[in-house]
């Protein structure tokens, strides 16, 4: 049990996918200008990540490994992620129209996103079992959520403050992200995995 908790914490804080692995930067900078949007985005990413990890794990261990086709994983997973997004879109529209309305355009934005693709890949590379890989993907999603919410809060404050002309917009956002990343580096070594 403790092992799962460690795995979860490591995915959220130590190996934060945005601030330590630098994945998913396009949505991280694209959406983080508004807190509300970041909230929706974080939920959508987490949901898709978990479902994609599940399918990815099944396909990897029951189809690709017996047939010796593991070199083929990446392309396969692209297919899986894209289909998952579609699937989630259809299912939520039918069963959770409120959630669907909240996600809106963000769901489609992550159909080809690197952070969603990388999580199932890392799961299978590390030979995680099904439960571990699910815990890991939930952690990764929450880590992403945390990062984007922090960033959105800072950027909303930045909008009110005086930024030198040359730093305005993405410039100051990158500087902020760099500082955030440094702060998250402080977690490394906290848990030895």
């Amino acid at each position, binding site marked *: 049990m403790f092992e799962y908790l460690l795995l979860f914490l490591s995915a959220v804080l130590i190996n934060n996918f945005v601030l330590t692995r630098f994945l998913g930067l396009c949505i991280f900078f694209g959406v983080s200008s508004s807190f509300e949007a970041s909230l929706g985005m974080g939920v959508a990413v987490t949901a898709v990540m978990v479902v994609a990890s599940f399918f990815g794990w099944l396909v990897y261990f029951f189809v690709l490994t017996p047939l010796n*086709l593991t070199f083929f994983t990446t392309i396969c997973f692209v297919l899986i992620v894209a289909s998952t997004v579609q699937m989630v879109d259809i299912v939520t529209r039918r069963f959770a129209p409120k959630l669907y309305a909240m996600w809106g355009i963000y769901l489609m934005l992550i159909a080809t996103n690197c952070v969603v693709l990388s999580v199932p890949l890392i799961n299978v590379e590390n030979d995680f079992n099904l439960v571990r890989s699910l815990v890991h993907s939930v952690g990764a999603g929450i880590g992403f959520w945390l990062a984007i919410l922090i960033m959105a809060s800072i950027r909303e404050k930045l909008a009110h*403050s005086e930024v030198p002309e040359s730093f305005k917009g993405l410039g100051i956002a990158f500087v902020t992200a760099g500082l955030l990343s440094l702060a998250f580096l402080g977690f490394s070594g906290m848990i030895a995995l």
Partner: protein
Amino acid sequence: MFILSVVSLSHSVTLVIVLGALALAFGLLLAFAAKKLAVAYNPLIDEVAEELPKGQCGQCGFAGCQQYAEAVVTRPEVPPNLCVPGGNDVAQIVSILTGKKAAEIKPRKAVVLCRGGRGGTSAQKFMYDGLDDCIAASQLYGGDLACEFSCLGFGNCVRACPYGALSLDGVGVPTVDPVKCTGCGLCVSVCPRNVIALVPTDKPSVVRCRNQDPQERAEQICAMSCVGCGHCKDICPHGAITVKNNVASVDYERCQSCPEPACLVVECKFGAIVPNHNFKVPYTEPGKLNPVERIELARQNERHLDPVERAKTFDEVNLGMEKEKIDLEILRCVRCTIPACTERCPIHNRIGEYVGLLAKGDEIGAIKVLRETNPMPSLLGRVCPHPCESKCIRGAKAEATSIHAIERYVGDLERRLKKEGKIARPTPPAGVDLGRVAIIGAGPAGITAAFDLASKGYKVTIFERSPVSGGMTHLGIPEYRLPRDVIDDILEDLRSLKVEIKYGEGIDKNRPLKSFFEQDYQALLLAIGAYKGLSLGIEGEGQFEGFIDVLEFLRRVNLGDKTLPGKKILVIGGGNSAIDAARTSLRLGCADVNIVYRRSKAEMPANPEEIEDAEKEKVTMHYLVAPVRITGEAGRVTGMEVIRCELGEPDASGRRRPVPIKGSEYHIAADVIIPAISQKPDLSCLAQGHGLSISRWDSFEVDEKTLETNQHGIFAAGDAVTGPATVVQAVAAGHRAASAIDEFCAARRKQAAAA
């Protein structure tokens, strides 16, 4: 080798098969899910989405245009007018498509309500040393002290605006570029002083005809072609509609979006000017005036006594307006969204608000609103030179609303109701004792400060040197302009507030300022006014009997000495006190009263109404004449030698400088000469070594923000600081001094509690 290639071939085949199978599986799964889980899709959603601007801005509250389209089609509670960038046009189309009723959509724009610069509103911006942030300044000092509604001018809103629509202008007040403003409201959220607001910019009317070429327009058979007749232009009270090249256009900057727009009831035969929203004429109740009739109302006149009869007595000349006239005058006020009158008023009376309450018949409410800013409405309604009216938007095309008459009406109504016991006089808060404050001088500034401080819970003592209260309003302003029962009513209020007035006492040479602090007064306010006449600087001045300073003269008459000083009176000067002295002389029985003024009538600083009244009462005016020498015989004034002037270049005050014409001297005979040029504070009452910083005009030098002098705990306000000014300016200074003294005492209490 061969085996290897066979192996890799078989591998590739497996790969293709697996990939195909996977794709097929997912494809089938998705197809199955789409079929099984399909939500009934309304094609109307796409139709509506097609009409939306697709900016994905999210201002409607939905995540993107598609979501909004879906919501508006599928959910009955979602209105068709949420698309902000689309505005009214899109709302109309969506409402037609969905069959939902479109209430009007009003795009909102930011508006800066404070114009700054005047009445000390934003003049304070440089007072906060080291601060450059409105929120910080507001938290540290409460911002500006005189006005709760004032721009601090540090530009937080300018920095916050993501669209660059705000900029700071010269006086330190932001201006909004309506083209760039999107109505996002970020500036409103960062302003700590509530100076910026979002107002609906929905204009009452639009001109649909855009065709500028009259020839072409005439040839077109166009149902909505503007002919430029200008009916709409004539009716708009704000001058917001202009006609150029025979086409009318609406100036969105000037249009005030009146609550009951008159331009909409103009029937444009050509349909070129149309209401922009669901305006319906039944604003007009039966028996009441419709908006057009209201706009066409002429300014009502106040009733005056007959000029010949009134010049014999001290009865009040201006009788004000009757209820019927006031009711009409109230209807003339259009109650602007951005009231320029409130902005101009030194004490920021909320004119539109109380006039609106009066129009609804809520007289008590109107009294309450007026009393919040104005401790003496009855007095100010009579003697204030009403600078507010010069800013009234109605003045642009017709005459300004008679704001002072309405103020006087409300004030008199309040006095009557108080006398009848229908409304209570102000009382001090029960069980609050914040300490003692001494005020020197019971003039408008001192009385206002006493009002404010006493209602906060201070025990206030006013020291007044003369035997009466009111200061210049009693000693300077004659009875025919301000009946004394108005002042008595103010004193009654002060009594009810438990303010003590000690007559015949004050500061003098034997009573140093410090002695007040020894008597347990926490703070001292010097509101001693400006009572010392300036000298003319000419030969013969003050050498003969019959040469009386104007304030000395008025003071004597106002304290009851009604003897005639002479047969022919000559008053020198063009201010209100010169006119007062002349008209008072008439009432004392003098038949030949003259005023000598070195500029022309247009430059006279006295109220135009006063000048007019004086002329009607047969005061002889000598314009463009400057005094040269006072002549006298046997110790008595015999007249004055004067010289004719012409107007030269404008001077620093903006008035044209009088230039004497050489060789045009002549003599005017008179047995009394009253110089009334200007006054300065009389500082002879101060004990030696008072240590106060005094300007070269003999006024107290004070901190602009707090009105505190260079001595700790001693404040100064009114004419003693500004030199002779209007009553309303003194009232404004009184308010400001009171809040500064309150802050000062609060800081002391805090210190004492800490110690």
